[in-house]
């Protein structure tokens, strides 16, 4: 059945009631403020904890699909048990920004198709996404130039801030999620206002990344000099997919568990081979890999870059490595 879009509105002071309704049937993952200004996605226990007023979360919601670490199975001698993490109840990811929803579609390409990753896919299939369109992008956001924000994305439901109410666009499949008394039909004026708000948000985005650059012309070697080789940029990235598999075991009892956890191409151990050879020995080799993977290898395979312009890597790199500046580098500008 072709999805028709249902258009509704909800008063801001009713958002909590809506989330409470959703919590009756779903596990809800939503933005929660911790400390003075940091917002993280958490499985919420109360709708009161949800924060709707944030630029973007510190970490992307990636970890709810591809956890920092997860058990694959336990073993004792030759016996294997308890394989795979279970996820139980259906989930709703509430309030994900458009760039981060696009981030998931980038992970999909890797975890679905050629190889199907059961752990990732069961979470993905079990989760309905309600995206919160951006109204205040910050100076590091460059989603517009990649078509990954600040509004449209492949979420099941998209909500847009109209001032005192939110505009809700839902696919018909998800009609049950918006069928409550507190959610009203949208008036023609609401639709107009939504378009205006979305346009305003787009206009606030000032950074743009250039596409189809020849990476061999960039200044990666020089840029890598200050890099500390931490994994920060890759771990906070909504599109980075790499993991390692490791064991925790009690050798004496031949007993333990195998799990997988995030890994980063910025670490020297990443390309270390048995026998001691390292195919990316130098820091600059590793630094280059990150850019070549995102802006050359991945696009060659899947037809789009492995970056959604969320700006997190630039915001958080402790030595101010700036992905836009690096990619937009023009070797004819000699003032470098």
């Amino acid at each position, binding site marked *: 059945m072709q999805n028709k879009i249902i258009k509704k509105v909800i008063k801001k002071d009713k958002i909590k009631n809506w989330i409470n309704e959703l919590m009756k049937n779903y596990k809800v993952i939503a933005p929660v403020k911790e400390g003075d200004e940091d917002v993280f996605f958490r499985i919420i226990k109360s709708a009161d904890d949800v924060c709707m007023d944030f630029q973007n979360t510190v970490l992307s919601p990636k970890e709810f699909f591809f956890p920092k670490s997860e058990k694959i199975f336990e073993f004792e001698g030759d016996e294997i048990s308890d394989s795979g993490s279970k996820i139980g109840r259906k989930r709703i990811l509430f309030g994900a920004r458009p760039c981060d929803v696009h981030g998931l579609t980038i992970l999909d390409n890797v975890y679905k198709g050629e190889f199907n990753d059961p752990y990732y896919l069961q979470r993905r299939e079990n989760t309905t996404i309600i995206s919160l369109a951006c109204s205040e992008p910050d100076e590091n956001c460059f989603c517009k130039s990649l078509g990954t924000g600040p509004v449209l994305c492949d979420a099941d439901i998209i909500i847009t801030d109209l001032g005192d109410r939110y505009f809700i666009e839902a696919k018909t499949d998800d009609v049950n999620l918006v069928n409550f008394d507190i959610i009203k039909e949208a008036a023609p004026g609401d639709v107009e206002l939504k378009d205006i708000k979305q346009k305003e948000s787009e206009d606030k985005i000032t950074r743009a990344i250039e596409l189809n650059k020849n990476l061999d012309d960039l200044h990666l070697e020089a840029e890598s*000099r200050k890099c500390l080789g*931490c994994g920060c940029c890759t*771990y*906070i990235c909504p599109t980075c997919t790499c993991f390692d598999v*490791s064991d925790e075991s009690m050798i004496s009892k031949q007993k333990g568990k195998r799990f997988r956890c*995030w890994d980063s191409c910025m670490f020297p151990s990443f390309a270390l081979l048995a026998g001691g050879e390292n195919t990316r020995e130098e820091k600059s080799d590793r630094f280059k890999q990150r850019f070549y993977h995102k802006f050359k290898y991945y696009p060659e395979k899947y037809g789009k870059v492995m970056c959604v312009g969320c700006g997190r890597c630039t915001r958080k790199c402790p030595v*101010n490595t700036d992905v836009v500046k690096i990619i937009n580098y023009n070797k004819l500008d000699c003032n470098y």
Partner: protein
Amino acid sequence: MSDIEKNLRAEAKKLLEEKKVDYVIGYEESNGKVSPCFIDNAKDVEKLVFNPGCVHNLSVYLLEADAENKVGIVAKGCDSRAIIELIKQNQVIRDNVFILGISCDGVKDLLGKDYDKCKNCKYPVPLIYDVLLGEKKEGKEEDYSDVEEIESMSLEERKKFWNKQFEKCIKCHACRNICPLCYCEECALDDKNWVSKSHKFPEIWMSHLIRALHTAGRCVSCGECERACPVNIPLRKLYRKIGKDVKELFDYEAGVNAEDVPPLVAFDLDKDKEKIKQN
């Protein structure tokens, strides 16, 4: 342009022209933010800046310099302590570094807020330098109220506090990699026989407590770990607790006096046993 910046460029230019150093590690501005930079040619010294955005402790880059390299480095008060400690711990050869010391007025984050380390900075004037830029100034009194606040919590409260913090950790190792005193070539945190790669409790406590204990007698409180942490874990508080204990037990403050012997070297089991017990 401030006088400090002007003099800094002139000094750097001289060093490079006279081939006293191979390169200078300093700060540059890029897209409205400050970044570490490396100046290899005298003609590039105009890039160098010094302003309240210059928060980075550049001495971490001394660890990457080759033994035969001579390096110029810009250092604030807190940064200079790391250099002293690195020299003491045989990681840096004194004659290989030329320290462009800056008497510091404090640095600020992107929102213009003072960093915690500057609010109670004891040593704004570098404790080691080859030239000093800026007027000498007084430091502030030692203030451990941040640590005392946590010390006053009950064991349960403390456990809850740090659990909530460590749960956020993504194990990116930015805290370790940015730390000038984390110079071990083989880090215990990378060895899965010591520390599991898992992010779960209790393994995540292991990584944090190992690193915390390893800062004993080394941490100079530059706060870079805390600044680098993408999820804002108050790491400096944790390591300052260790620093405070080391001070109380061994009367040692890392990176302050080149002559003081680090407690891990000076430790005398018979003599120091009693002290430890009492605490």
